[in-house]
């Protein structure tokens, strides 16, 4: 009795040691539960969850192909795909901005898209190599509080915001992929030294918020005078809530090819490792085609339509009047941007 008992105690100790250092994670149970892929495709989605939901619902209705969505942010999912490499469960990757697309493409993980998928999209909204394609666009704006700033006091250029007189008066969401794409454009247009010193000034001048909509809310409440965000947060809030978070806000477009007039391209790409390429390409084709672009025009995302000659929503400032700077989307380098921002103490 005594012996069997101490052996029992020891085996229990072993069992509990295994629980503390769980090398054995119920392999059978776990592998039975792997991500769904038997039918349909998996989309890694960094676009607004609500917009992609509209796209997916319409696509599934038209084609019968099921879509499983994994939501995340641009760089999180982009880096995730790079880490997963050939084993990635993703078939299609959607972003809000181009840098994450460039990241995955530079790792050689995208499959080239067919001519029919690319054709509806003008050259300026897709990379030359055709490995991914623009599906929507958004414009940088300076959203300002109308009670605190008048037209003549607005900054003429994004670069002005680095001047000392703007200390503590403006906001941004530096942790977000949106703002990092804007910095990426700045880096491409003005070079590393100018960008680094602008970021350093920004650390002094700007109030950081988490998320563009939160930054706009702060402008509306008068906590700051203005914020560098994208256009559709304002237009969406006006349309959806009648201005709950934006009644004191107006948009200022920088124009004149200024870095602050940067138009960011949302992209879609098909993974080379996809085992469902036919369905995956069908989804990308749907996005650049009439169906996907009509969702942009008629839905409440208020992002610009870019393909197939479909007009953007009538509430938006026309794309061709924005005088955006010429930026190569495939050359936007987010690694360099986050390194610079980490060095400036913004991340």
């Amino acid at each position, binding site marked *: 009795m005594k012996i069997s008992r101490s052996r029992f105690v020891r085996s229990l100790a072993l069992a509990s040691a295994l629980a503390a250092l769980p090398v054995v994670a119920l392999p059978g149970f776990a592998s039975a539960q792997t991500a769904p892929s038997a039918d349909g495709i998996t989309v890694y989605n960094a676009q607004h969850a609500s917009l992609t939901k509209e796209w997916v619902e319409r696509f599934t209705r038209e084609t019968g192909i099921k879509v499983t*969505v994994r939501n995340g942010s641009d760089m999180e999912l982009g880096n995730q795909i790079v880490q997963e490499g050939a084993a990635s469960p993703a078939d299609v990757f959607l972003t809000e901005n181009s840098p994450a697309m460039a990241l995955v493409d530079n790792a050689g993980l995208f499959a080239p898209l067919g001519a029919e998928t690319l054709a509806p999209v003008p050259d300026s909204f897709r990379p030359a190599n055709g490995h991914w394609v623009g599906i929507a666009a958004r414009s940088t704006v300076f959203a300002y509080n109308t009670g605190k700033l008048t037209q003549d006091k607005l900054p003429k250029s994004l670069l002005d915001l680095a001047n000392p007189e703007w200390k503590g008066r403006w906001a941004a969401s530096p942790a977000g992929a949106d703002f990092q794409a804007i910095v990426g454009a700045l880096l491409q247009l003005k070079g590393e030294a100018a960008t680094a010193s602008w970021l350093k000034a920004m650390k002094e001048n700007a109030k950081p918020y988490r998320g563009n909509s939160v930054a706009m809310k702060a402008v509306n*409440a008068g906590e700051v005078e203005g914020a560098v965000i994208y256009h559709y947060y304002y237009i969406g809030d006006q349309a959806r809530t009648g201005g709950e978070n934006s009644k004191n806000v107006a948009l200022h477009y920088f124009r004149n090819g200024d870095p602050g007039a940067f138009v960011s391209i949302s992209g879609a790409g098909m993974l080379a490792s996809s085992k469902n390429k036919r369905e995956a390409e069908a989804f990308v084709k749907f996005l650049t085609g009439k169906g996907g672009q009509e969702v942009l025009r008629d839905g409440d995302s208020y992002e610009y339509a870019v393909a197939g000659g479909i007009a953007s929503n009538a509430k938006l400032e026309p794309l061709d009047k924005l005088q955006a700077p010429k930026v190569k989307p495939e050359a936007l380098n987010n690694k360099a941007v986050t390194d610079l921002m*980490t060095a400036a103490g913004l991340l």
Partner: protein
Amino acid sequence: MPLAFVVWITIQTGWDTVVELVFRRRVGELLVNTLLLVLLTLPLSILVAVTLAWLTERSDLPGRRFWAWLAVAPLAVPAFVHSYAWVTVAPGLHGLAAAVLVSVLAYSPFLYLPVAAQLRRLDPTMEDVAASLGHGPWRVFLTVVLPQLRLAVCGGSLLIGLHLLAEYGLYVMIQFDTFTTAIVDQFQSAYNGPAANMLAGVLVLLCMGLMGGEVLLRGQERYARVGSGAARRAAPAELGRATLLCLLIPLLFAALSLGVPLLTLGRWLAIGGSRIWQGADIGGAIIQTVALALAGALLTTLAAAPMAWLSVRAPGRLQRVLEACHYYVGSLPGVVVALSLVTITVRVALPLYQTVGTVLLAYMLLFLPRALVGLRASLAQAPVELERAAMALGRTPLQAVRQITFRLAAPGAAASMAMVALGITNELTATLMLAPSGTRTLATEFWSLTSEIDYAGAAPYAVMMVAASLPMTILLHIQSKRAAGR
């Protein structure tokens, strides 16, 4: 395991990069923020909790049973729902002061529970002796009562401190940067890059510092009562003319910690109307949440069972080391555990990557201590003689434990499962980072809607989380009363 992971990554990253990533201004800012948060929140929470506990346990405050319930009830509101409510009420509420306010409101019950239980158990003769020696009531409270609450205060403070270090949603919403929010920022801009891992390393050190501090403060004094017989119930202190003033304290606490969340939720539900219930797939999120919570709770309790049995039946040095390991892992923030599991599964154990198994494993690591506490108490109450008798009647040791002891411990197991399930229902960061594609829990849905500032659309999910947490909060309250022998 996560500790070994952090060390391994540090070695892999190379010393120069580590120095560059750790000793920089941003880390300094985060350190100041996090330390200020802990140093301000803890004393305030102690003050609030001890005041409330004394009023509800030792005074003749009218309706004190009712106030006792209200003091615990904020636990049913997840921390990030607290801040969601406060951001709605006062949109300008940002920064340190806001962080401290919301933290105190959301976490004080963690201190109130043990302090109230301890106050109920105290032997009033000690106070009588002190009073007979000529000390005034304040002096008696400060020199006799307060020191006896030390263990309860230390334990509760540790729990709150660990929550402060680990919480993500609460601080994001009120714009306060801590290590945890910065790690998630880095994760979102570079996935599991070295910068995120180094921040995680510093956070782990902070957690260990907190635990070490608790051990030091706990001290070695003796708190036991010598002598036989049961302690008599303490006579409630008469508040007299101060009653009205004292009533204001729990009233204010309840208004801030319960009134604000409930009113804002009600307001958003009214604004949202039927739209927010129709468009969203709330049913699906509930089913997924419940499934994850049940599976996680079952797994965690099963994993805790051998450890709990050992610590009751065969205490020894090996057992103490093992138990310390369990507690240590459970004190790690969800974001650190998730970060290490992401890297391990994607690099080494790819078949486990993005599986339900991995999320459940993370839940198990995070919530093991909760399961352990409940299980151990009830195992201790199952008499060992019955086990021996069963073995004498021919059962093998395993059979005896299974058929006798674990059956007697079933109520405790149920309670610890409930505790774990509650934790999983409100868990955000690990779920976001590890769950299989297409997973939508109440917490993740609530989070994705609030980050698009669709506060009305998020309200139903918050209500569901509160509803799910209520029964478990009630259970906790009853349990703490029972522990005090009433």
